């Protein structure tokens, strides 16, 4: 490595292709070049089969507020970069790749200088297909390695187990989280393959899980794999008052650093569902555990999916039991209103486990202003709920989804890395 005279580690050269550009900054240039070559495949007759591009630049990352897309990959990385300079390079590279992949275009030709720059999974012209890339940072990023301890988001911690959890450390935490979401499976797989290729040597996958959002059956909110509509009672993301109150970080309050503006705390919980067992439970019991009708998602005391349950009219829980999931999670009271979260979860299916049982469940994902005030309070209220017998949280972590990328010169974490407290 030293014969290149570069302080950077091998990952900064590895992606350059054999013997092309022997300078670490070259690969960043190349990533940027890919982005400038980007062009919407408007003349493609099949373009209609793909979703349009989601604008990459903005005050917030584009993948946080929208409803879940059909396909997702959730992956956590541990960083193997040695210092802050390398971390900056990594985040710049990640930004360039995300900008290109979400915009689409023709990958730059390399001629005879090396293997092709793109896997080709999406064909010769990369289609955006609605891809969003959401990058988060874990508490471990703020240890001694990068000198970032003083600018850690105020409420970012390592996920501690809740009483009903059965966490596998190998599937928990990570320095960096990445949520890729798009209209089809090949799009998110292509994005993951591209991003890992361009960050090799700097980041190693710690855990990964693939998810999907079901189409509405037959309408309304998509169902989870327990057969219930899931995510009905979310904050209204079209209302800035609600998102400012519940989703976006609040710099300057309670020690929240200024650089967090536009970011949001991301909680990911990998939750296995014991679906064989669940399928052996009577409909009445299923509905009373959830608090909603299975057929149309209505609260048990109402008729329509989006009707608001009236707990005040049912103090003993005759209609919606006091320990029903929806009643504990969101009691609809004034004191609990600020604990609401924006749920953006995906179903997962990982085949079967070692003893032949179906391994499926939920990649519970939520965004919020303060996880201690929101997710942790909600989850604490759910301790011991009847539903716990049918599910088992085994992985995930707490992350801070970085502020949005403002323009072509911006990159993930720029404000964090240049923060002068």
């Amino acid at each position: 490595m030293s014969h290149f005279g570069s302080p950077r580690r091998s990952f900064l050269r590895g992606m350059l292709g054999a013997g092309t550009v022997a300078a670490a900054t070259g690969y960043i240039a190349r990533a940027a070049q890919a982005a400038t070559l980007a062009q919407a495949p408007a003349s493609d007759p099949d373009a209609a089969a793909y979703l349009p591009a989601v604008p990459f630049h903005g005050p917030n990352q584009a993948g946080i507020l929208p409803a879940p897309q059909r396909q997702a990959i959730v992956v956590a990385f541990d960083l193997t970069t040695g210092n802050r300079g390398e971390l900056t390079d990594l985040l710049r590279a990640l930004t360039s790749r995300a900008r290109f992949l979400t915009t689409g275009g023709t990958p730059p030709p390399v001629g005879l200088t090396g293997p092709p720059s793109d896997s080709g999974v999406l064909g010769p012209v990369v289609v955006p297909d609605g891809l969003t890339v959401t990058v988060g940072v874990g508490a471990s990023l703020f240890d001694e390695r990068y000198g970032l301890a003083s600018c850690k988001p105020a409420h970012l911690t390592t996920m501690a187990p809740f009483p009903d959890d059965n966490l596998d450390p190998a599937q928990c935490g990570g320095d960096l989280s990445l949520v890729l979401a798009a209209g089809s499976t090949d799009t998110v797989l292509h994005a993951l393959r591209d991003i890992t290729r361009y960050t090799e040597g700097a980041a190693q996958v710690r855990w990964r899980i693939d998810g999907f959002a079901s189409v509405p059956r037959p309408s309304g909110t998509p169902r989870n794999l327990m057969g219930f509509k899931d995510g009905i009672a979310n904050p209204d993301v079209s209302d800035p008052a609600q998102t400012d109150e519940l989703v976006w970080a609040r710099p300057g309050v309670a020690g929240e650093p200024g650089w967090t503006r536009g970011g949001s705390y991301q909680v990911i919980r990998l939750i296995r569902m014991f679906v064989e067992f669940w399928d052996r439970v009577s409909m009445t019991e299923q509905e009373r555990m959830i608090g909603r009708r299975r057929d149309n998602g209505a609260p048990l005391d109402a008729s329509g999916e989006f009707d608001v349950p009236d707990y005040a009219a049912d103090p003993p829980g005759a209609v919606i039991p006091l320990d029903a999931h929806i009643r504990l999670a969101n009691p609809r009271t004034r004191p609990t209103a600020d604990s609401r979260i924006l749920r953006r979860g995906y179903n997962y299916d990982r085949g079967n486990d070692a003893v032949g049982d179906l391994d499926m469940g939920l990649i519970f994902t939520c965004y919020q202003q303060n996880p201690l005030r929101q997710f942790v309070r909600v989850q604490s209220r759910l301790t011991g709920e009847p539903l716990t017998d049918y599910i088992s949280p085994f992985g995930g972590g707490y992350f801070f989804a970085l502020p949005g990328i403002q323009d072509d010169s911006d990159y993930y974490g720029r404000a964090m890395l240049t923060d002068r407290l």
Partner: protein
Amino acid sequence: MTRRGLAGRAMGAAVLCLLPGCSGASAGHVPAAATVSGTLITVSANACGSSWRHPSPGLWTFQVHNAGTSAVDVSLTNAGTGGVYGEIEGLGPGTTRPMTVSVGSGTYAFQCDNGSDGELTGPTATIAGHAPGGTAVVPAGVGQTLTAVTSERTYVERGLATTARQAGALLTDIQEDDLTAARSAWLTAHLSWERLGSAYGMFADYDDEIDGTAAGLPGGVSDPSWAGFYRIEYGLWHGQPAAALEGPARRLGQDIGELRTAYPGMIGYPQQALSDLALRTHEILEHAMRFQLSGADDYGSGTTLATAAANIDATRAQLGMLRSLLVTRYPDLPSVYSTLDRLQRLVDAGKAAKGWMPARTLSTAEREDIDSAAAECVQLLAPIAAMFEASPTP
């Protein structure tokens, strides 16, 4: 194996037909065209489904509307036998919910119970002829309910006394620093506990105190708050000295003692206790499949197959308490016993001359045979819970 599998599938179909909305002939695959949808049934404090005007055989979806001011349980019953074809529990005031029922020849009446005004029975509707329909489940009578519930209480109290005595022997062995004897005493006491049939919180917080695993504890197996049989197992099979185990063993005895005092107060009203009992007939083995047959709850002794065997004993005991109720209601009861016998034979084969085989040492074929038999058991046991499901309020 293949023939057994096919038999299991056929049994499953028969089981399904105990549920509302399933006609005997088509086992749930009723063509949509047969559905008579949207028949409005209104219930209130003084009316119970008087609007079913033109009954005919087929699959009916009633839209049951509560025009009253309090929650009500609504069921469609056989006016002759009192058997229930379909039920909505806790229909809130002002709300409408569907009830889908396969209706054949017979005499029907809606029944409403809002918990305060007593039971109200609507007018009867008669369908002549011999059209097949769904199967009704006759609610348990008071006498049979009390018999079942009382026999369970006796069973649990005796089992707790046995467990308490054996936990005392375990403490003595530990105090005498005879850890070889303690390991044997631990297994004896733990299996007595497992024979009680506690699964998924039968004893509320006592389950965690007495038989909780280290999952969910911040310090894992080193967490100082971890207590109970598994805590002691971990110590006995991980080289911990007697001095480190005396405290946990003493606490185990105290917790069992407290549970013996608290248990009578934890039993619900008779219908609820019967419902819980029926629920456990499959939950005990559901629990055993997930945590014992898989080996997940092996903290060193390698005796999860022994635990599963004790759980099978518990399931048999619960079925025995319900037997007089089940023989008239559950045509697949003989299959329940034959599959339990099969499972028991397979699990007992894991008891070698030197002790029990750890579940993880089973061959693939052995493990598959056991898991498959256990899955068939719970599949056959699950309907029992639905048959005796209690209304949430007495």
